[in-house]
């Protein structure tokens, strides 16, 4: 657990990560490094075919290899009782192969090398079928009315067809394609499983949802929830690929049972390309029509994406973009999906918004060019003053300030609107581009607890939630939020997470962790206040209405009569127990349909916004795009910690630059196997690709959303950035690239 002694700031302070020292010194133990002695090592044998049936698995030679303890295959896998996700089938539940790289066997041995070698000795015979991997293959099953989580993805409001054909409108209709991308966190997924007897299970897992993994494993193996413990003190990046209950988790637990030993089961880097999801391919057609004033008369957003036969995940590009960003007189959304024999797709940082914003914000730039309007003016002309989706007012929206502040900081007024007309003194084309950013503000149900202990002359607070820190700074903001809620110096506060025994938490996905934790901690702090007041007899606060009481400088004090107050220490003392505790209530306020904060759902729409400004420079002879400057201005409610929030936006921008310029998971169209499943051939940006990145925040609390006023910041940074780059490339060269990534060959 991080040493939190150095946490000094409440909410708003640029506090250093409380876990920073542990991470840079290597003291932080990630799942694969769980302190479990005598753990054996598992290695997963992948399928080399993409479609077919396993005819036979011969493990006889492998079993005799040095160091081998056990081999798990579909033939000796115990039946699971649910809990799995990501891949729709229960792991090892049948002999069908639905994608290349599918897990086929797990070898457990005393060293990782021996496990890997023994896996190569397993002989698997397949009956092979021809996979469909090419999106242009007309024999791929096409679904023109897909649903996602039970909801249809199509939408229609007004008459786009008439708007587009009306006289005097300017119409842009273009197709934008984005390739399959892979998350590639630094830490590869890993599960370490330890059975204590037949009915108790301890697991260390690299996960985006400690409580989810806990519930899933208990269910799958038919165990009492209190007999399962899941730890995840650190997650080395997730970006969505650790958000589902992928097969390897269950294989690790089953293998540990079979081997009668704890088992460490990490995925290899190559397996991270096939067994923990990817962002699906998308082909989007945007049709947009506007009058001479730029007002949108019609917007049609067509999406074709690919889905795996063993997954229900759909990349829904329009729902989070065209439905929410602009005020258009008519809107039509159509989504089709093609089933291709590829591994399951999944959530990847701003799923839907990331490809969706590339298409929409590129199309807006094309429209601005056609209308001879400044791209910001076009966006301001279509600013959505209320939510286009729900017609409700926004809880808090400052997008216009994002444009203004960003334009000024970037120097947007120096942009020459005529493409391919500006060069640097050393002869490179220079271009400016911008795009909006947006991401919804979400809450996942969850709880937290806050305990107060006596310490010295004062108190010490320890708050906790099962939760998890993906590297985003949850450890740190947990301290800061608790310190703010209790009005204590952060040095007197500790925060615990990463343990399923702690109060249940939602997943870290949808940028929901900070807001959900703020809500849970806020309610726990209120409960603590009530607990403390139970011991207020004989104090100046005896009999006071709780609504008139606040935490103030180490005391509980009346709001209306501030001189009426009691030291927190005295109340803990009077309670006579080791600590006084407040826990998030069981009221259903943490359900999206509930009361209180989320009841505001009836009154408000919750959404974050931002704007990116990008400068590119491109050599005339060698068209290698260099992104020389990025300015991003984000409206994410109250900024909990400017340091960690800035890092989140920078991380999103860098990932977006990868989307724009280099990233593309490529499959052999004959075999369905990825051809670039490693860090040399799958190109994430490297340091030398990254130049000046500046981040600014509007920093206005959204107090309709939670008592701290924060919305999440993990995902919004990536939205819009690829469009801003493509728009800048157009401004620099006059070449409009609608097919990502923008590699040199496309600019020749």
């Amino acid at each position: 657990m991080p040493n939190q002694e150095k946490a000094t700031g409440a909410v708003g302070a640029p506090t250093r990560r409380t876990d920073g020292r542990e991470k840079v010194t290597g003291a932080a133990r990630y799942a694969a490094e769980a302190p479990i002695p005598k753990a054996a090592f598992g290695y997963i044998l992948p399928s080399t075919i993409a479609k077919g049936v396993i005819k036979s698995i011969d493990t006889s030679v492998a079993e005799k290899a040095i160091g081998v303890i056990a081999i798990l295959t579909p033939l000796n896998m115990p039946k699971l009782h649910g809990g799995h996700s990501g891949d729709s089938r229960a792991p090892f539940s049948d002999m069908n192969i639905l994608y290349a790289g599918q897990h086929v066997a797990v070898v457990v041995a005393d060293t990782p090398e021996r496990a890997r070698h023994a896996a190569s000795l397993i002989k698997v015979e397949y009956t092979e079928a021809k996979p469909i991997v090419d999106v242009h293959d007309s024999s791929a099953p096409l679904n023109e009315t897909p649903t996602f989580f039970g909801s249809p993805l199509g939408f229609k409001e007004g008459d786009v067809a008439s708007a587009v054909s009306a006289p005097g409108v300017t119409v842009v209709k273009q197709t934008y394609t984005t390739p399959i991308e892979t998350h590639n966190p630094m830490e590869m997924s890993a599960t370490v499983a330890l059975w204590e007897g037949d009915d108790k299970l301890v697991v260390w897992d690299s996960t985006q949802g400690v409580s989810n993994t806990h519930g899933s494993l208990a269910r799958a193996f038919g165990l009492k929830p209190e007999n399962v413990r899941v730890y995840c003190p650190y997650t080395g990046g997730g970006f969505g690929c650790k958000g589902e209950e992928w097969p390897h988790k269950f294989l690790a637990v089953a293998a540990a049972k079979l081997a009668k030993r704890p088992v460490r089961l990490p995925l290899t880097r190559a397996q991270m390309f096939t067994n923990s999801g990817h962002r699906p391919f998308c082909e989007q057609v945007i049709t947009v029509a506007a009058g001479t004033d730029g007002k949108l008369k019609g917007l049609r957003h067509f999406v074709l994406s690919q889905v795996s036969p063993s997954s229900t995940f759909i990349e829904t590009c329009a729902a989070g973009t065209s439905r929410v960003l602009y005020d258009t007189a008519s809107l039509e959304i159509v989504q089709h999906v093609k089933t291709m024999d590829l591994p399951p797709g999944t959530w990847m940082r701003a799923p839907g918004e990331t490809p969706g914003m590339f298409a929409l914000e590129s199309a807006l730039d094309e429209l601005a060019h056609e209308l001879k309007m400044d791209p910001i003016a076009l966006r301001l002309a279509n600013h959505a003053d209320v939510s286009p989706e729900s017609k409700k007012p926004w809880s808090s929206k400052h997008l216009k300030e994002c444009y203004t502040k960003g334009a000024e900081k970037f120097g947007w007024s120096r942009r020459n609107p005529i493409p391919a007309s500006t060069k640097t003194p050393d002869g490179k084309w220079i271009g400016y581009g911008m795009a909006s950013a947006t991401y919804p503000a979400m809450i996942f149900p969850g709880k937290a607890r806050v305990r107060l202990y006596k310490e010295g002359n004062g108190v010490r607070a320890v708050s906790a939630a099962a939760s998890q820190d993906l590297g985003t700074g949850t450890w740190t903001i947990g301290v800061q939020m608790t310190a703010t809620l209790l009005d204590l110096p952060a040095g007197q506060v500790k925060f615990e997470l990463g343990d399923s025994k702690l109060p249940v938490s939602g997943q870290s996905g949808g940028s929901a962790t900070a807001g959900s934790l703020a809500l849970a901690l806020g309610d726990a702090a209120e409960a603590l206040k009530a607990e403390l007041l139970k011991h207020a007899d004989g104090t100046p606060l005896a009999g006071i209405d709780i609504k008139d009481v606040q935490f103030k400088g180490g005391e509980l004090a009346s709001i209306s009569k501030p001189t009426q107050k009691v030291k927190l220490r005295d109340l803990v003392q009077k309670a006579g127990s080791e600590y006084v505790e407040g826990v998030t209530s069981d009221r259903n306020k943490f359900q999206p349909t509930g009361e209180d904060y989320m009841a505001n759902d009836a009154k408000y729409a919750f959404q974050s916004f931002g704007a990116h400004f990008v400068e590119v420079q491109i050599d005339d002879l060698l068209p290698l795009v260099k992104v020389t400057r990025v300015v991003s201005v984000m409206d994410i409610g109250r900024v909990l910690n400017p340091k960690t929030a800035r890092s989140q936006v920078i991380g999103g921008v860098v990932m977006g630059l990868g989307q724009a310029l280099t990233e593309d998971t490529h499959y052999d169209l004959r075999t369905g196997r990825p051809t670039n499943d490693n860090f040399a051939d799958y190109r994430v940006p490297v340091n030398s690709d990254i130049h000046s990145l500046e981040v600014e925040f509007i920093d206005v609390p959204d107090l309709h959303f939670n008592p701290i006023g924060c919305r999440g910041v993990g995902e919004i940074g990536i939205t819009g950035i690829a469009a801003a780059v493509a728009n800048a490339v157009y401004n620099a060269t006059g070449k409009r690239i609608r097919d990502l990534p923008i590699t040199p060959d496309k600019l020749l």
Partner: protein
Amino acid sequence: MNDFSYSRPTTTTEAIQTLLSHPDALYLAGGTNVIDHLKLGVVTPSQLVDIRHLGLDKISTDAQSVTIGAGATNSAAAYHHEIQTHFPALAEAILAGASPQLRNVATTGGNLLQKTRCTYFRDIHSACNKRQPGSGCAALEGFNRSHAILGTSDACIATHPSDMAVALTALEAVIHIQDQSVVRTVPIEAFYVSYGEDPAKENVLKPGDLIVAIEIPRTAWAGHSRYVKARDRSSYEFALASAAVAVDVDAGKIRNCRIALGGVATKPWRAHAAEAALVGQSATPVAFRAAAEAELASAKAQKENGFKIELCKRVMVKALQEAAEMRRA
């Protein structure tokens, strides 16, 4: 990864003898290629013969040449003052390759023998004539965006991946090779062989042969040399196309020049046609472009790599422009 033994000879003779008596053994130097391929199952040696302790890591200079020990790391060569000053294209080429961590362990001898990055060569479940002669070439009808346009055959279209070897080819380096009796010298252009029928045979090394040094002659043009590399990201990335050029320009006329290409050919590609087209010409963009056209006339595109023909021409022009500028400066 199969079982293998490990030995650490103390003399070059002992190392060569070990290789000769164990035909399935491999030399291990920096290991950046061999260890990777061991893990992938691309190589399955019976023994690794560690040659890092043979004293082959020295870099020496005299009036005629610079000699880089085959065991010198890429970093040691790239940051050597004499090389930076008098053979700039070589320093630039080395620093354009891999990452600092890799360059700190990878050796110059090993770099000459670097294996292709062709995805099918690295995937033991794919057909590959270079890895498994006679099995076919999965790249011909597969993913071949990064593959070669020069020197290809129906058996193989894999590129030679080295940056350093391209600069060495332009600088007409000489490879010193030791066998059990003598050290012989082979000009780098003769060191690499064309693929022909057997793409597994990439060079003239015989069993047991040990590269001990790389010698680079001083010339009137080596000091005005440049390495230009086009790639999909700005570091830690193999070339889509690269060019090492050295020019001797006098009063605006090209008296002499050497050009080699990388990322586009099955071996470091000496551009003789371009050189011939340039000698005696004025150092102008038009002449540079004409030379590039002459060299690429024989290029053959695959389904996904046709762009390399134009890109390579531009890389050549860029490198020639920059090298000619150096002369003026």
